[in-house]
């Protein structure tokens, strides 16, 4: 069972058990719904922007430990960042999950999000980890747009 520790790192388990920013934001100005039709995971994302900056962010929904903790850590990671900074994080996060190790992503930039690197060993779970990020991208792009993991990045 020790191989499972690579996937389910302590930090992931903690965010799964105690997700941060796990709430709706009443006066959110950007919202989006994320949905993974393969496993039925759903996620609602709420953003409050100040110009180009993510001032507040919250999420609600149900999903596996990977999808929930990824959403939780994403919210803590992008709060206070600009739209461009957030999208750059996603780009790096996505590269880390889909490519072999060190395939052109900035580990330093990813910071704590690097705990998800083990997910790349589980191809079926990559979409769990990226659902929240796809949803964030949609929320930043357009108001109220629904997105699924089947859409292109």
């Amino acid at each position, binding site marked *: 069972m020790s*191989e*499972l520790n690579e996937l389910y790192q302590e930090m992931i388990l903690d965010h799964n058990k105690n997700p941060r920013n796990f709430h709706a934001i009443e006066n959110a100005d950007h919202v989006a719904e994320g949905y993974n039709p393969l*496993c039925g995971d759903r996620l609602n994302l709420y953003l409050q922007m100040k110009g180009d900056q993510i001032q507040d962010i919250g999420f609600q929904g149900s999903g596996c430990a*990977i999808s929930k903790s990824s959403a939780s850590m994403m919210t803590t990671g992008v709060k206070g960042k600009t739209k461009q900074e957030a999208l750059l994080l996603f780009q790096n996060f996505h590269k880390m999950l889909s490519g072999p190790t060190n395939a052109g992503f900035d580990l330093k930039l990813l910071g704590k999000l690097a705990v998800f690197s083990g997910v790349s060993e589980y191809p079926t779970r990559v979409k769990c980890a990226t659902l929240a990020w796809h949803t964030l991208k949609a929320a930043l792009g357009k108001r109220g747009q629904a997105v699924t993991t089947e859409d292109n990045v």
Partner: protein
Amino acid sequence: MKARGKMAHSKGENELTPPAPLRIRGEFSRYPRGVGGVNDVSGSALCPSSLDVKRLRQDFPILRQKIYGKPLVYLDNAATTQKPLWVIDVLNQYYSDENANIHRGIHFLSERATQDYEAARGKVQRFIHAKEVCEIVFVRGTTEAINLVAQSFGRTFLKAGDEILISAMEHHSNIVPWQMLCEQMGAKLRVIPINKKGELLLEEYERLLNARTKLVSIVHVSNALGTVNPVQKMIQMAHAKGIPVLVDGAQAVAHLKVDVQVLDADFYVFSGHKIYGPTGIGVLYGKKERLEKMPPYQGGGDMISRVTFEKTLYLDYIRSVGLEAIAVHEKDLVTYGVKLLLSVPTLRLVGEPSDRAGIVSFVFDLVHAHDVGTVLDRAGVALRAGHHCTMPLMDFLGVPATVRASFALYNTRSEIDVMVEALGHVTEIFG
């Protein structure tokens, strides 16, 4: 994959000489090793049933492999069953020696393939005890069979305002074709509700049957919960009002003895790959008087029949092992499994039907089914975690997904022990 290498085992041995035919035409020269011959009682230690499971397991080469260094425990049989060597060999032989288009060529191979194809039809007829051989239509699978009835029967006999009746525990394959048809015809899809145990509410069903109902389409055995529906009684109830019934037997035929004449089903559909046969082949049974009134479903060469492979020897495999014995064995496994599962802390069964086939679904209060699936996978246990293509049912039960163990003739009690032990790690990791 390891399995592929193993499946090719016979090829190396026969490199210089062509493989000997496995059978005499229309007969079988090989029988499942688990039945007949010297009776090895060691199997009874695995399970108190009349099946010699230990020997039967040798018929399935894929079961010999290890996953992450652990013996494969295959409990995803409701998705697809593994194939006995017998079936694999026959497929190999067909493409090596006999491949030809049916109902076409006047050459030897084509004529022989046509004969085999028609013989296979007879075999299916006997397997489900259809009255006539012409009542067996080969299709690609359950889904195509349902679509065929929806488009051919449905578009002929349905008009705006009519109703099709399905149940709340249907697979998407028995929902979407009817939704499409209803949209096309301005008809209405109505749904028989279920209780929390996962059983159909027959009083509601009775109430829903009315003069506008043109067809009832119900699942025989629920793929998500294992519920065995009282289809014979339901068919009687529908027929009393002159309404025909289609039964989705995808999860039933490998586990229960199905007699379409006793059931009096108007249509009965199933897939080959869930009963130890190859993928891409399925059966639509339809009463002759129904089929005769249905226009062709697809235009093209050999209309309606779209099979790519004509062998149905897997039916002989099942028959020689004995469906009754298989049913007893699987009942034992599921009873044993349910008992053990109930002892796992924070685990909750989803659906507790009084009549259950070899399928059991469960969830953990605080752990998502996919995480459970991953933990089990690392223990070598293959099973399904998800919504099982029954999203309306999952919504009703208030769970996004379940973990599902489904049993076949080759599973053992000790495999269930392995699964339950691995489930113990779930709360360890996520607790």
